[in-house]
């Protein structure tokens, strides 16, 4: 229990012009822990996700990995550090097939040629872990359902053998059946000992799989809840601002 957390954010701030997106935000994620980040629209959830995955740089504060201060300079840097992210508008190529999408930008090759067979095998194994029902790896993405695309997007993260996975609204626009699959997948990520940051509007989904719920409100921390003991109402009132963690500065 005394080991340093996998990821720590200390007093992280971010401005976009005159807009304060994040003000002194703290966050901690341990290995084998699912931390949910919840909040209203524009609470800063996605900004945190983008900062962790190297897309934005913090204006103030510090990010620590395994207790060591780090600068996550770019998405490639985050990738090298074992951080994988799936965003709301996932970066998938509609015209390419499933395997190509999973390995997009990190294609495997053998003696200078694409190793299609090995990529197919790996892609199948990732999808099998996900319980995905995509029969043909040659199907272009444009023909898949929203849920199947989400599965491809999440399968993509497994390629880098990540230690921390950031999922931004993974269950938005999914059917209940597909939501069930994605939530089970989040549980298996935890069982694999990875840290998971789960961003979602849906408190029901969040409370189903998260160990801890961190509430953001107007770019500030507004409460941290242990899922097992926190009631739906407590979390909701922190989101809406009915309860305040500290006064606004």
């Amino acid at each position, binding site marked *: 229990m005394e080991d340093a957390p996998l990821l720590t954010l200390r007093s992280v701030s971010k401005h976009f012009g005159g807009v304060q997106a994040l003000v002194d935000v703290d966050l901690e994620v341990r290995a084998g822990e699912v931390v949910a980040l919840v909040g209203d629209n524009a609470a800063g959830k996605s900004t945190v996700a983008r900062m962790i995955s190297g897309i934005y740089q913090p204006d103030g504060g510090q990010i620590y990995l395994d207790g060591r201060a780090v600068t996550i300079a770019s998405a490639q840097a985050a990738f090298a550090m074992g951080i994988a992210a799936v965003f709301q508008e996932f970066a998938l190529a509609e015209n390419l097939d499933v395997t190509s999408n999973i390995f997009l930008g990190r294609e495997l090759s053998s003696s200078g040629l694409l190793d299609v067979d090995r990529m197919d095998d790996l892609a199948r194994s990732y999808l099998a872990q996900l319980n995905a029902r995509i*029969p*043909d790896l040659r199907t272009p993405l444009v023909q898949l359902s929203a849920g199947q695309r989400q599965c491809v997007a999440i399968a993509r993260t497994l390629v880098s053998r990540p230690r921390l996975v950031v999922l931004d609204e993974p269950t938005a626009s999914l059917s209940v059946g597909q939501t069930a699959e994605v939530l089970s997948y989040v549980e298996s990520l935890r069982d694999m000992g990875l840290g998971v940051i789960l961003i979602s509007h849906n408190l*029901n989904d969040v409370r*189903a799989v998260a160990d801890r719920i961190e509430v953001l409100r107007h770019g500030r921390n507004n409460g941290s809840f242990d*899922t097992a003991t926190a009631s739906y109402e407590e979390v909701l009132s922190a989101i809406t601002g009915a309860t305040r963690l500290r006064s606004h500065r």
Partner: protein
Amino acid sequence: MNRVVGAPGSQPSLREANSSRIIEAVKAYGRITQVELASVTGLSPATVSNIVRQLLDQDVVETTATTRSGRRAQLVALKTSSALAVGMHIGRRSLELVIADASLDVRTVKRLPLPPDHRSDTTLDRAALLISDMADDVGASMDQIGGVGLALPSSVGREGRGAAFQLPGWEELDVDQLLSARIQRPVLVVKEADAGALAESRLGSLRGASSALYVYASHTTDSSYLVSGTPLAGFRGAAGALGHVRVASAGQICRCGARGCLNTVVAGEALAELVRLSHGPMDLRGIVKAAADGDPGCRQVVADAGSAIGAAVADLATVVAPERITWGGELAAVGEPFVAALRESVRARPLLPSPDELLVDPAFPTEGCSRGALVAIHDAINAGVGVTVEG
């Protein structure tokens, strides 16, 4: 499924093997085009086409015309000869659903994690959506579903009302009516432990036992006593409440109002409380996972829970003398530390048969309840009694 006729490598045996591969694939995907079948099974399109034609003749599958990428294609699905049945288990932290045909051949399984103290309206709405979603997956319409068996922690509903302390907020509900109003199909509610026992007795390790005891150890503990394959219901269906036998006369007050019930010692919350200081907040799933991974503290907690449950089971077994005992549920599914403690408790009673004779490993350590609910509704559909659409 892997039965093969003819000499190995001969033409007929090859064809048989290929056709069982195709059936497996159709089962796995519900509805699938012939082109996709070729891709999944690795067989040539011509072979797939031949085998599908054969299976059509044998009435195993049915095909419908569709289009894929602007081309005409044949969609292949298993023929639904008779009504499908749905088995569902709503527990403390998850919902599990299986769909099967009349032969109890499970077509598809799905699990949805649920939040702690989930609300009945949200959960039942999601359950209804999930049923129609999954029916669609196996290529069936809602009309083809003969009914839904629903396993719940202790009995909730008209018969056993007042005994349901395990799902907070669900105590006063007629869950069968609420769900059947949503899906317009008959719903039959069974107790979790009875469902698990039914699954083992019909499909698993209690088959053929004249009397048997099934112990359900999960977020709470319960049991079911089977006589000739039928769970003993008792007055108002309240039999089997193993979690409410007294084990600590100076213990904590149980949800039921009595003092020192087994559940106050071995329920998920009680175990979480034991590791809170050393491990921080953990849920039952986390404790079980850590115990399985060899964490000494969590192994100890699980083993102690096993001893407490084992002592109660040994008491009960001494009274009713079952032929076999098996178990299920998230806590029991951890295996060794739990089962070893159970074994020890049985060994300590000279009147009982040896643990090797009495204790049998379950066939469904985790998915028993949904399968048992399936068995229950399947029987009710076949008997044509007690199942009606209400609301």
